[in-house]
């Protein structure tokens, strides 16, 4: 798997612009870009009502779980998945080989509208991620001496 370089503040601002524009046009509540390992890369929208970390982990699992189903009908994988609820729904689409986009939306909009705008958004996100220099390193450094010697997690 190709590694995704560190996202600088400028990269995140560019991603936010793309995702914000998408949310506005599609009238969705939340959009999260994740890697296929389940890590959230960027998110935009109302994140107060749900734990984005958990959504990302479960969505990556859900996407991968259907891969075998796709293979049985001659597909490599499904490009998009839609989970329909009563009031809230989730639409997920593939951005590239490493990345997935998750959109959470409610009754204000329709899956058709979300699907329509998500295609162009995925392309824009993919282009932006590809433009990052994978050899640039993560740019953030710390010394071993910066790491606390005390236990990182404490048993209460």
């Amino acid at each position, binding site marked *: 798997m190709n590694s995704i370089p560190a996202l600088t503040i400028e990269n995140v601002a560019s991603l936010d612009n793309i995702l914000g524009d998408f949310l506005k046009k599609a009238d969705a509540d939340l959009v999260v870009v994740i890697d296929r390992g389940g890590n959230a890369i960027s998110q935009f929208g109302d994140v107060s009502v749900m734990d984005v970390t*958990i959504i990302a982990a479960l969505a990556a699992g859900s996407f991968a779980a259907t891969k075998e189903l796709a293979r049985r009908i001659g597909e490599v994988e499904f490009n998009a998945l839609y989970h329909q609820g009563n009031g809230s729904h989730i639409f997920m689409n593939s951005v590239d080989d490493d990345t997935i986009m998750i959109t959470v939306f409610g009754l204000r909009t329709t899956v058709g509208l979300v699907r329509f705008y998500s295609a162009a958004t995925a392309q824009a996100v993919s282009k932006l991620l590809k433009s990052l220099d994978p050899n640039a390193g993560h740019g953030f450094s710390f010394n071993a001496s910066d790491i*606390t010697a005390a236990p990182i997690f404490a048993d*209460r």
Partner: protein
Amino acid sequence: MSIINYASREIQFKIVYYGPALCGKTTNLAYIHERISPSNRGDLVSLATAADRTLFFDFLPLNAVVIKGFVTKFQLYTVPGQVIYNATRQLVLRSVDGVVFVADSQWEKMEENVESFRNLEENLAQQNISIDEIPYVLQYNKRDLGNIAPVNYLEFLLNNRKKRVQSFEVISSTGQNVFSSLNAVSQMLLHKFSKGDAAPAAAPPPVAVPVEPSVPKIATPSRV
């Protein structure tokens, strides 16, 4: 593969608890979830069957130390131990940064332990990761049971590589050494990450089998 986000000032790491079926991986996460401060953790998500066997994975997000203004976030996953779920294990191992290998100390589980460790090596190799490159620790779990193998035998089976790693005698149901092993792998991970930018190399973790006083020591590990 760690992810750094400069906007939210976060670094994300993924730690996977790996091991044979019913060795106590989920129990590890349940204990950590129960005992860690609620302000430092999210919900424990468990995708299990009606019989409480892990079907897909368990997931527990944790917030940890702040380094140079960046919050380190650790995402703990378990894999389903049952042999047939290898595709799921490969999925969960994607982008992994560190591993806690949970071995079942009972004599009758030795073959399954070795098989699961081999399976871990194979699945990491599929991602072009060598077991020798990735930070990992070993847990010898269920030390409270009667029919258990001595630690030096487990060391011979699972920790007999050129690069030996830290190993822990664990009773995951009571929490013995659960946090010690999590802290050890987290420290290794952070040190590896700090080395990534040519920071001064950290001292390699000592090969040790910490034992808390409450549990009788079975045997001193010896190099075989």
